[in-house]
């Protein structure tokens, strides 16, 4: 019996229809804000600079438009997959039903590492921006990073999370503010726009790299599928998946046009806070403070959403026996405290590495490669599930074999292109981002093949020992 068609009966006999409307459910506006808010982080400002670096002249806008169009393929793929399994555990379910439980675990563990990368990157970028605005010694940037992570950790441990409505307002304010300041900047006299259509002007590889970085600007918008269980209607998530990329595309495009209009690429490329440079060039000190405010606001969504998604994923994995049981321990506010602390410490370490090496652009390349890889896996999963799973879908992607097949090939190329990019030089080649991604995947694979079986064996042994000692038997009374 399905939920929708049930004329359910009560145990006492009479039948009644119940719509199962939730008291608090998420509508299209909130879901769209969630989707856009998860994607639009402080690292996006650096991402726009990466696009502008790899696309020749002032063609970043075109690369972003192509990235936006490609993200609609992702919207279609995730909409259909989400309509099959509308649950927070969706990504795990899509991949495990298509390719098996082990591969799903490897993919999701690797996927979750992007959350740590984004949290660390945002902490670093916001710390650097605050330090710049206050004219403090550069070493103090790391103090700001630690302070931001500490605040986020304490709020999470205390179970304080930003309400959906507040998160929506924050997202729309961030997008509107970024767009507003960028439009003001466009009216200022500035640099010309040479080669506006030359995305591939630096060579084919650079062109693909520019598009991969452009796609990264939309990264994580698909995480809105984790809220599917609280959506008012299944279509809410589909709408969010198609509308949010448009909002991100518009804000990123106007920002890229304004940035290349008022700030030289060299200056933007050398800076961890190009948005502040744009604010300053457009409106002086006021513009700088404006963009710092926008940057800090992005952190609310990143830290709130990132910590919540990742710590609950860790909790679920520990409860399932795929991570040590300690990660499922809850404090008195029902927060998996060890998961939150480990996430914060890992983010602080990654943030320290970025701070020490100055390689913040590497995070963009790694993130772009990881995200494109996940999109390729999702496309492949849809292709497989179309052949092997005939369950009813609330949304069917038209021309799925062609669209998802195209997505699979394209995302694989983009993952490779960004993985082999030298973030500091569009004409050079560097395997470093790919090495970082491969290392993360290798660690996940080794963990799933070597550690997880041991955890499962230990859990089975514990249960056997408990039964043998008579401590734990089946509590349910046997049937007469």
């Amino acid at each position, binding site marked *: 019996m399905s939920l929708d068609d049930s004329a359910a*009966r009560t145990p*006492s006999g009479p039948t009644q229809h119940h719509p199962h409307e939730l008291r608090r459910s998420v509508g299209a506006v909130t879901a769209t804000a969630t989707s856009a808010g998860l994607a639009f982080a402080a690292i996006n400002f650096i991402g726009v600079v990466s696009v502008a670096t790899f696309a020749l002249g002032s063609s970043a806008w075109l690369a972003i438009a192509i990235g936006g169009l490609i993200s609609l393929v992702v919207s279609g793929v995730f909409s259909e997959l989400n309509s099959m399994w509308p649950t927070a555990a969706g990504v795990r379910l899509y991949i495990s039903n298509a390719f098996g439980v082990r591969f799903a675990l490897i993919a999701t563990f690797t996927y979750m590492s992007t959350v740590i990368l984004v949290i660390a990157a945002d902490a670093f970028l916001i710390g650097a921006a605050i330090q710049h605005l206050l004219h403090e010694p550069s070493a103090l940037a790391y103090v700001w990073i630690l302070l931001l992570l500490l605040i986020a950790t304490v709020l999470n441990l205390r179970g304080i999370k930003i309400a959906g409505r507040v998160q929506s307002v924050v997202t729309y304010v961030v997008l509107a503010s970024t767009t507003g300041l960028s439009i003001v900047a466009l009216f200022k006299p500035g640099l010309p726009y040479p080669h506006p259509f030359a995305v591939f002007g630096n060579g084919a590889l650079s062109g693909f790299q520019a598009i991969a970085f452009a796609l990264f600007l939309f990264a994580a918008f698909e995480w809105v599928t984790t809220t599917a269980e609280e959506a008012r209607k299944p279509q809410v998530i589909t709408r969010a998946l198609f509308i949010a990329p448009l909002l991100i595309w518009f804000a990123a495009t106007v920002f890229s046009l304004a940035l290349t209009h008022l700030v030289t690429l060299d200056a933007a490329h050398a800076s961890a806070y190009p948005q502040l440079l744009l604010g300053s060039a457009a409106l002086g000190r006021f513009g700088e403070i404006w963009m710092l405010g926008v940057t800090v606001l992005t952190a609310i969504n990143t830290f709130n959403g990132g910590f919540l998604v990742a710590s609950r994923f860790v909790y679920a994995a520990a409860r399932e026996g795929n991570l040590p049981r300690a990660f499922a321990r809850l404090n008195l506010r029902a927060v998996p405290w060890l998961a939150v602390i480990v996430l914060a410490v890992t983010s602080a370490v990654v943030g320290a590495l970025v701070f020490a090496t100055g390689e913040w652009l590497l995070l963009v390349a790694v993130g772009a490669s990881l995200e494109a890889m996940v999109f390729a896996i999702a496309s492949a999963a849809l292709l497989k599930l179309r052949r092997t799973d005939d369950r009813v879908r609330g949304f069917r992607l038209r021309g799925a074999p062609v669209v998802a097949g195209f997505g699979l090939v394209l995302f694989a190329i983009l993952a490779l292109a960004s993985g082999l990019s030298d973030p500091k030089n569009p004409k050079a080649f560097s395997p470093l981002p790919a090495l970082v991604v491969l290392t993360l995947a290798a660690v996940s694979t080794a963990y799933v093949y070597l550690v997880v079986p041991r955890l499962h064996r230990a859990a089975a042994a514990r249960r056997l020992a408990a039964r043998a000692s008579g401590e734990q038997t089946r*509590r349910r009374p046997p049937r007469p």
Partner: protein
Amino acid sequence: MASWDEVQEALADYTVSCNTNERLRKMQRDWSRMLHFICSDTGDLFSMDVKAGEIISTPSGHVGVPDVVVTTDSETFCDMFWGDINPMPRYLRGEIQVRGSQEDIMRIDAISYVIWPDA
């Protein structure tokens, strides 16, 4: 397939286990929700009214507007309420379907975890 009497018996035991667990009551003190349950195999419906972490009542049928709707088969409900299974793997496999916020879903699992950590 479990009978309605078996589900009720399991539910009664679950209510006692929840309401007498001090740590759980403290953890759930800020959690007040109306839960609806649907047995997908028998069509049986029941509700659970939780106020400040205490299960106030578990009437048959659906009462009020739910914060959470849980759907699975009657056997799984019985095993879950008796603490004989860990609900999380079944949720992750899609065998238990829940409508509600992620936070509420975690809270429901946390109840089982706190009462029966070795299930």
